[in-house]
């Protein structure tokens, strides 16, 4: 087998090792590439900036631990932003594991900004049914979520005073890793109840939501860890996403290198076969 032939059929484990190294090394020794903020992230940031203090924001934690590295940093960053602007946050989850992850993000952000559970933020927990839950919340939130995730009746929570249905919220932000997620919130909360909906999702699923962004059905969108890092930049904080950006940069560069290398090998092989057939 010639060298070219060997390169063409390179054992994919070599590629795996290269990717592992390019992820691990920058995590241990950060480089600090500058981060540019994309318009979709800026728009969500602006939407939150423009809310008057005291307004209520609904957050839906529709992700689970497997997608936590991507979605949690944006959840944390947006919670920090909301609390720093004195907005009140009501959290729910359409994914069972989203409850504790969302709670962790809210607690961390609340501690930094000195916010209190029950007064400044609340977590109403998980309800099964996906889109049906959003529909029901549009009609009557108190019937859908009679108590918070700890079992406290919502009548006893000051933040829930006057909250009847989705109309009580100025903005909905969905943190999504799949279904039910962004599409359900756009279809029900935005299309049916005319709420402003913003979203943060995994990088893999972000391209599918660009049509909603262009039609204005989403006020803003954070895609993957990059979206979270951009948001952290707007907040001028060094969060978990910023730390992962160098690794992602180098990994992308390595994948591009492999693609170009693969094409080069293909070109050389093609030339050789052409010469042979002459």
């Amino acid at each position: 087998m010639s060298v070219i032939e060997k390169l063409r059929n390179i054992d994919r484990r070599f590629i795996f090792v290269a990717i592992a190294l390019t992820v691990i090394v920058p995590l241990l020794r950060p480089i600090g590439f500058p981060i540019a903020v994309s318009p979709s992230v800026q728009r969500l940031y602006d939407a939150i900036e423009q809310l008057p203090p005291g307004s209520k924001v609904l957050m839906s934690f529709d992700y689970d631990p497997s997608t936590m590295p991507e979605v949690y940093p944006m959840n944390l960053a947006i919670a920090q932003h909301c609390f720093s602007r004195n907005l009140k946050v009501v959290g729910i989850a359409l994914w069972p594991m989203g409850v504790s992850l969302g709670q962790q993000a809210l607690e961390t952000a609340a501690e930094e900004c000195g916010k209190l559970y029950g007064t400044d933020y609340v977590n109403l927990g998980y309800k099964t049914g996906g889109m049906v839950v959003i529909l029901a919340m549009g009609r009557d939130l108190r019937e859908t979520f009679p108590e918070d995730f700890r079992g406290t009746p919502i009548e006893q929570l000051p933040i829930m005073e006057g909250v009847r249905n989705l109309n009580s919220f100025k903005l909905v932000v969905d943190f999504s890793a799949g279904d039910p997620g962004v599409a359900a919130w756009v279809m029900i909360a935005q299309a049916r109840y005319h709420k402003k909906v913003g979203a943060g999702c995994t990088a893999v699923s972000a391209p599918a939501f660009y049509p909603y962004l262009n039609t204005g059905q989403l006020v803003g969108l954070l895609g993957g860890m990059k979206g979270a890092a951009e948001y952290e930049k707007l907040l001028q904080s060094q969060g978990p996403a910023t730390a992962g950006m160098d690794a992602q940069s180098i990994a992308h560069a390595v994948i591009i290198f492999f693609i170009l290398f693969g094409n080069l090998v293909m070109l050389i092989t093609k030339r050789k076969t052409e010469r042979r057939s002459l």
Partner: protein
Amino acid sequence: MRRQVPLVITFVAGIIMIIQYFIPHEPFAGLQQRFNVWFLIISAFALILGIGNLIKIHGERISRQSAGWGYSVVLLVGLVTMSVVGIGWGIEPGTPFFYLFWNIQIPLSSTMFALLAFFIASASYRAFRARSFEATLLLAAAILVMLGRVPLGNFLWHRLPAVATWIMNYPNTAGQRAIMIGIALGVISSSLRIILGIERGLGGGQQ
């Protein structure tokens, strides 16, 4: 008769669901929610069948001591352990179930998800080849987006993120929309076939 009854149920339920979308009045109000609850109840019972199937297959493998039967033991022990601690102490934070879930299940799930990064690299190495003009265009767009989506792109050329955003916003969105409209129409026509009982493979159609 055995074939007709499910078809009639499907037809009636399907028509009712279409009607309830347009009529907010009783008895149609809240029907969608009720149907969904019914579905959840049925799938909860179906879970018993699923677990039964799991126990049967792996039980047989253990009793026959066929290849890899040790893994079947691990599976059944895991199934029993999680069920016992879940039913016995609940699943709230602080319980043994939560501890096991957080420290075994979650790292394992994250590991599988992380494999994606490796597979994306190997798949793109193999498949992203400039074989034709279209493939070359796709390749160029992919490289621009990949660079433009990370800080490295911004570092190399400050306009690169804008280029990536443009590709995502216009050519990508146009394609996505076309696919989405096609899918929506496909779903409607497929649903009509199921409601009318002419879809094959689900009891309908001529066998």
